[in-house]
């Protein structure tokens, strides 16, 4: 199956549910196709592309669409039904990078001290201690566990540096979910996700979403915290060469700290999920 046909089977986020600022007709793009999201007076929505109706669903505070008549089911986030969490859609940021690059960056912790200095990491605490990566065969997901890292300010609710433990799930090629130590409670984990809308192979729109136990921070503070982190990444993402995610192991040399990235790339390759990927080393000169 070619990459675009495989990509067409998935759901993609295109808007926040019940966003009062969205115009009646909202134009955007998915997989290189122009689409229009119409919001009717009663709040119901529909998506049109070249006269074709695309399916829509609402999940995790976002509206998702797909060009497929028979799409793969949207992945599940059980924590989304825990009523006492605060659910925080963080808006959208457009990035000139492959959607897969955006996901891979989200999975990387080694850059924290250098890009998110004094927030998610700090020098000299730069070591990534060994962690575990598996493919969950039943769900067909990449899972990284026991990822531990010293963080000066792990979340808006953190008052001092803590060693944060992360678990990562990649449940579909363009979505990643992170479970991390909740700074205010021992018994639960905060959930932070990155939902990526592929505009085309070299451009994406990123919709971060959080499900947190944080009773003190204002909504504005929590959204701002996440946007601040992501904007620090954006600059780096837009300057990565090649723009598309290299799948050929000869193209980039990983280290032990990149285990999640290696597993993610292999899993994409195994699944044929290569929209936004670079499959042959010879392409590199084209950047």
């Amino acid at each position, binding site marked *: 199956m070619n990459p675009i046909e495989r990509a067409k089977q998935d759901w993609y986020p295109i808007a926040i549910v019940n966003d009062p600022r969205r115009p009646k007709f909202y134009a955007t793009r998915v997989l290189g196709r122009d689409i229009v999201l119409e919001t009717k007076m009663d709040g119901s929505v529909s998506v049109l592309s070249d006269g074709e109706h695309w399916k829509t669903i609402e999940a995790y505070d976002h509206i998702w669409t797909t060009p497929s008549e028979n799409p793969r089911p949207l992945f599940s986030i059980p924590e989304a039904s825990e009523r006492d969490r605060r659910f925080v859609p963080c808006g959208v940021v457009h990035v000139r990078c492959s959607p897969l690059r955006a996901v891979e960056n989200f999975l990387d912790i080694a850059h924290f001290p250098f890009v998110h200095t004094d927030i998610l990491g700090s020098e000299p605490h730069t070591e990534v201690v060994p962690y575990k990566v598996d493919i969950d065969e039943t769900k067909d997901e990449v899972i990284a566990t026991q990822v531990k890292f010293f963080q000066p300010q792990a979340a808006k609710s953190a008052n001092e540096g803590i060693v944060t433990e992360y678990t990562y799930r990649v449940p579909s090629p363009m979505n990643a979910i992170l479970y991390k130590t909740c700074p205010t409670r021992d018994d639960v984990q905060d959930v932070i996700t990155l939902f990526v809308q592929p505009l085309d192979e070299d451009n994406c729109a990123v919709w971060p979403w959080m499900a947190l136990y944080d009773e003190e921070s204002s909504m504005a503070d929590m959204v701002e915290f996440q946007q601040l982190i992501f904007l620090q990444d954006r*600059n780096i993402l837009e300057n990565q060469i090649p723009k598309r995610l290299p799948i050929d192991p000869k193209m980039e040399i990983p280290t032990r700290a990149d285990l999640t990235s290696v597993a993610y790339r292999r899993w994409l390759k195994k699944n044929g999920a290569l929209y936004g990927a670079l499959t042959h080393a010879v392409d590199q000169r084209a950047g």
Partner: protein
Amino acid sequence: MEFTLYDYALSGNCYKIRLFASILGVDYEKISVEFHPSADHKSEAMLQVSPAGTLPILKTDEMVLSETQAMLFWMAKKFDRSGMWWPKDDNPVAQAFVLQWLGFSGDLTATIGQARLNSLFQTPIDKDKIIKASVVALRRLEAHLTEQSFEQKKFLAGVSPTIADLACFPYVALSGDVGAGFGLEHDNYPAIRNWIYEIKSLPGFIAMPGIFEMHQLKDHEIDPAERFRAKG
């Protein structure tokens, strides 16, 4: 706490005030306002604070300011003991130059600032027109800074930094956020690059997303032989 700042972390205009407060060592209270996605700065509650419906807002017991140029002026007059950031009254020419470049900072917000918002959040703009105007603004700044350098002046209005430099700095430094291929990368503007280094070298300089601090070598990164030579 000397004042309250209604702030948004990704705003270049808010950053001007955070940066100047850091340089001057002034304590203030910061209240985050959700500019995106909820546009809370336009909400009824925020319009009660400042009818301008913009960020930042600087508030004291006596006043509410919505223009960053007025905020920078007030901060310089009130907190700057050196008299460097706003020239003294016996030097009207220097004051006029600072005002001139403060005015230019408004052009930068209206050009690069708008193009950046469009690139980040898809705010509707006439993109071709705004990008062209952004390039014109950068070229004008480059020409001015080049001329200044012929006279050994590293800053917009003279040999020392003024509030005009801080007002112009953020959107120039953030121009890369607009994206590659528009002629807004710093590669083409050597005088602007030197000026950015000068500002990043100021004591009290702080970063924001998209504007990095200059890398400072840690002790363990310095080759011992190099350290010896530097001391010798």
